[in-house]
């Protein structure tokens, strides 16, 4: 990668931030007339998909996505501070999410980190424009948390691999052009991990089909992907045969935010705590404001303490002087702490609604069009996906606290 760009002066940064602020103010559409997904895992209808794809391209073209990725591959080539400022403006205007999460958040950093020049030229720009949607093929119907035991078969024949098996919980799987795929190339390897390889796999080819899965919310958003004698070029192998596990672990690091090459933006809408405080303030209990109830008041206060801590942790993570003792602790606990808090908090918010907690999306009597119910049910996508909270606890225990493995 080229030399690091210079750190901008405060004035340069302010000018860029003002421009971003003005752009998002002008261009952000918050209510397109249909419900916008809160996360990239909830994109259900063509309308939603088209809207978000267009939105990402628009943000990219304005220079507020991938601003700090290398220019030669389609990025802005600027210092990462610029992107941070742009993302802040995005948040401030409550802009919709970036759609291409697996591409920009996981595959992109991996390719930029370890890919060949040709791979960078081939893949990076298309994922920034959202022209090329990416998905992730890790979990299998029989192998979820035990990812290392994945069984999808990749057999080398000449300069091709032949794929057979199935992947599941593939967000955007029916829309994606590429999948980052974990497959077994060696069934005789000395342990389960060493038999795995990692592929940048094309989706729109013969032998690959998808079937939609209906989520607990009633929406669609992910699929099961079937591989039946699908043939891909041997060039799709990434990181060398037998290195699949370490590649997958690296993508999970990007996913957990432990090693960040920030493309910018966000793929999941952060919960706006003030919205919950507002909801609480507007709710009644026994004829009095809900926040006069000492139990609700105490719980809400504890959640405020939790939210503030996790928000500040994002800053503290960049301060090595406050990270000396267990340097992997904060980065590795982030997903666990944040996703569990959002689940608890959205569940808590249902209790504010009294009888109205009985309504759901689609009914005119539902509070905030059922936003809170949908948020609570969808929160499980994050406490289960990308490694369940239980697996996250093992990861923190083993990699940050030095406790022995469970197996």
């Amino acid at each position, binding site marked *: 990668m080229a030399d690091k760009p210079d750190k901008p002066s405060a004035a340069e940064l302010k000018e860029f931030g003002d421009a971003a602020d003005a752009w998002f103010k002008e261009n952000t559409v918050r209510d397109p007339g249909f419900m916008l997904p809160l996360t990239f895992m909830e994109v259900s209808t063509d309308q939603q998909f088209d809207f978000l794809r267009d939105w990402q391209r628009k943000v990219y073209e304005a220079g507020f996505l991938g601003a700090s990725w290398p220019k030669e591959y389609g990025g802005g080539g600027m210092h990462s501070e610029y992107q941070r400022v742009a993302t802040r403006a995005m948040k401030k205007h409550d802009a919709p999410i970036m759609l291409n999460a697996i591409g920009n958040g996981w595959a992109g950093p991996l390719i930029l980190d370890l890919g060949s020049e040709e791979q960078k030229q081939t893949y990076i720009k298309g994922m920034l424009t959202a022209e090329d949607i990416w998905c992730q093929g890790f979990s299998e119907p029989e192998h979820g948390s035990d990812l290392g035991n994945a069984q999808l078969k990749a057999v080398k024949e000449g300069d091709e691999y032949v794929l057979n098996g199935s992947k599941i919980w593939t967000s955007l799987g029916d829309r994606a052009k590429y999948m980052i795929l974990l497959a077994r190339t060696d069934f005789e390897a000395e342990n389960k991990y060493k038999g795995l390889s990692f592929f940048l796999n094309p989706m729109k080819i013969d032998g690959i089909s998808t079937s939609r899965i209906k989520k607990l919310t009633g929406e669609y958003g992910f699929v099961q992907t079937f591989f039946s004698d699908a043939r891909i070029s041997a060039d799709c192998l990434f990181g060398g045969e037998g290195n699949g596990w370490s590649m997958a672990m690296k993508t999970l690091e990007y996913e957990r935010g432990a090693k960040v090459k920030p493309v910018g933006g966000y793929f999941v809408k952060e919960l706006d*705590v003030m919205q919950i405080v507002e909801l609480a303030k507007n709710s009644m209990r026994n004829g009095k404001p809900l926040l006069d109830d000492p139990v609700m008041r105490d719980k809400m*206060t504890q959640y405020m*303490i939790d939210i*503030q801590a996790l928000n*500040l*942790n994002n800053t503290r993570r960049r301060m090595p002087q406050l990270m000396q003792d267990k340097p992997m602790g904060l980065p590795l606990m982030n997903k666990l702490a944040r996703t569990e808090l959002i689940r608890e908090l959205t569940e808590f918010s249902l209790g504010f609604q009294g009888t109205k907690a009985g309504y759901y999306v689609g009914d005119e009597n539902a509070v905030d069009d059922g936003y809170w119910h949908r948020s609570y049910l969808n929160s499980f996508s994050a406490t289960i996906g990308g490694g369940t909270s239980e697996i996250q606890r*093992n990861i*923190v*225990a083993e990699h940050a*606290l030095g406790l022995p493995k469970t197996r």
Partner: protein
Amino acid sequence: MDNLGNIGTTEEQIELMDVATNFCRDKSPMDKVRALIDDDLGYDPDVWKEIGELGWLAIAIPEAHDGVGLSMAEVVPIAEQMGRNLMSTPFGTTTLAAQALLAGGSEAQQAAWLPKIAAGCAVTLALSEDSGDWDLSNIACTGKQDGDQLVLSGKKQLVRWADSAELIIASVKVDGDVRFALIERSALADSALRRESIIDETARSFEVTLDGVTIPADALFDASRTRETIEKIELTAGLIYAAEMCGGSQAVIDYTLEYLKTRKQFDKIIGSFQALKHPTVDNYVEYEKARTHLYSAAYSWGEQGRGEVAVRMAAAQAHSSYSRAADRSIQFHGGFGFTHDCDAQLHRRKAIFDGALIGDAAYQRSKLAGLLFD
């Protein structure tokens, strides 16, 4: 919500963190902590002298009074390391008393005492009474003017390190108003102090009988500054004890981890069992949240509004995380955990004591709720 603060550090803070980490570890090994439990004084006078010589008592005192001229933010890493190593000394009470003097003391009172404190003289506060109320203005002790004397009466409780302190700053009611009285140790007979039996065996605390004690009538803080003095005491104490409890949480989690990594049952290291490792991770997460709040409170120190929210968040989270981590440490040590020899109980007791002094997590939250929602 614009009263939520940010996080940051100062160079001096990080330098002091490094020095304090080594000093407290070297000067307060566990066998020494244990030996001091049975010692009358309760701390090592040589270590106390060194603390004075290091200038740690002078950190948050202005240069005009022979201090270093930094702020409480720089005291935080020191208190944190003291808590981590269960290093008990009059450091906390003396620092707190200095801040009280800065908030409410007259120029003459500040000039008389702050340079002494900066040089290593121990001072303490007498605030609590039999009501057990954390509200510092809910007191019954009184001071009655008699010519140029003030005659005190009543009893003060939980006066830490009173036997070592050259000055006790006591809250009393004068003509119905809360005032802070400066009582020199020499004005108290030895019989006025009764050593209390307290839950934290590493600390020392006394009941002080004020009946019959007389002080000069002008040995009072300015009447107009009572409110800000109370606020300053609450927040300074909140910050100091949040720091100590945060360090203590870290220590008790590390102590638990050490056991989980070495103890074997069913032919396995017990730290491999998820029934033990998962709650330990949860406790660790709560500790890291407490530390984040602590350095946010240090960073926001002195900011109107934000300062109080940040300190109370830090105190609430530190107390709940320390209590929980120490409670689980006792349990996870099994039979040994039930013994006096297991260090987990030292931490569990200290968490109870610190919560009793400044208001526990639930109390901090009830104060916070008013700041956040009303």
